[in-house]
C-alpha cells in the first residue's frame, strides 16, 4: 500500500526526470536554484512539477530555518525495481551489465590495437 500519486506518471515527464537528475547530482536544492536550471520555465511551472514529484514521494521537502530544501527520495524507485527483480536476480543482472560493459571495453581496445598495428 503506497500513498500518494503515481510514480510512473511522475516519471513520464522529461522535465520532472531532469529535476530528479539535478537533485541526484546535488541534493537539497532550494526552489530558486532549481528554477535557474530551467530558464524556459516559470518558477510556478517548476513548482507544479515539484508538487507532482512530492505527491509520488520522489521528492521530499524539508525546512532548515527559513529555507525550504528539496531532496531526492530513492525509496519508491527501489520499490519499483523490487517489484520485478528479486535480490538474487538483481545481483545477477548487475553482474551481466558489468560483464557486458567489460566485453565492450575489451572489444574497443582490441579494435584499436588492430587498427594501429
Amino acid at each position, binding site marked *: *500500500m*503506497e*500513498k*500518494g500519486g503515481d510514480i510512473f506518471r511522475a516519471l513520464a515527464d522529461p522535465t520532472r526526470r531532469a529535476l530528479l537528475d539535478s537533485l541526484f547530482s*546535488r*541534493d*537539497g536544492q532550494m526552489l530558486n536554484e532549481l528554477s535557474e536550471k530551467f530558464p524556459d520555465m516559470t518558477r510556478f511551472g517548476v513548482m507544479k512539477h515539484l508538487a507532482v514529484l512530492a505527491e509520488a*514521494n520522489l521528492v*521530499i521537502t*524539508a525546512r532548515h530555518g527559513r529555507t525550504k*530544501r528539496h*531532496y531526492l*527520495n*530513492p*525509496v519508491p524507485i*527501489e*520499490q519499483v525495481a*523490487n517489484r520485478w527483480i*528479486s*535480490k*538474487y536476480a538483481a*545481483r545477477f543482472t548487475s553482474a551481466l551489465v558489468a560483464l557486458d560493459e567489460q566485453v565492450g571495453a575489451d572489444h574497443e581496445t582490441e579494435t584499436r590495437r588492430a587498427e594501429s598495428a
Partner: protein
Amino acid sequence: MSLPAHVYQIYIAATPQQVWVAITESEWTRRYFHIVAFVEPPQQGKPYLTVGVDGRPAVDGITEEMLPPEEGRPGRFVQTWHTRYDAELAREPASRVEWTVENVGKGLTRVRLIHGNLEQSPLTWENVKDGWVWILNSMKTLLETGQPLQRVSEDEILSPADRY
C-alpha cells in the same frame, strides 16, 4: 556542494506504534537491519551500542531524543551515529540519525529518516547513501507481510563494505 544530509521517506501500512517498536527494539531490528541489535534497550540521554550477529560493534552514539508516537503527536527517535563496522569509517566523527514516525491515515504511517551532520564524514555519507533505502524497504516489507526482504548472502552482511 552537496548538502551533507540524506533524507528519505516511506509510507508503511502499520500503526505508528508498530513502526516505533520496529525501530527501537532489537527483536525487530535484527530482522530487517542487517541482523543488528541494540546491546541495551536505548534510553534518552544515554549512550547506545549496536552489534552484529557475531557480537562485533556496528554503530555507537548517544540517544538524544526518544519520544514515542501518541495520538496527534509524531514519534521522534534521534541518535548520534558513529560507525564501528569499518575501521576507516570509524575514524570519522559522529553524524546524526533522526527518525520521525507520523500517523497519516487509518493504519498508515509516514516514516521520515534524516541522516545529517555528515559534513566531516564523507566516507560515511557515501557508505550509508543506498543502504538506508534497502533498510527502509526491508522494514516496510517486514511490517506489512511478516517477512523481511530476502538477503543476498551471508558474506554481504558481514563484509565491511556492507551499508547501513
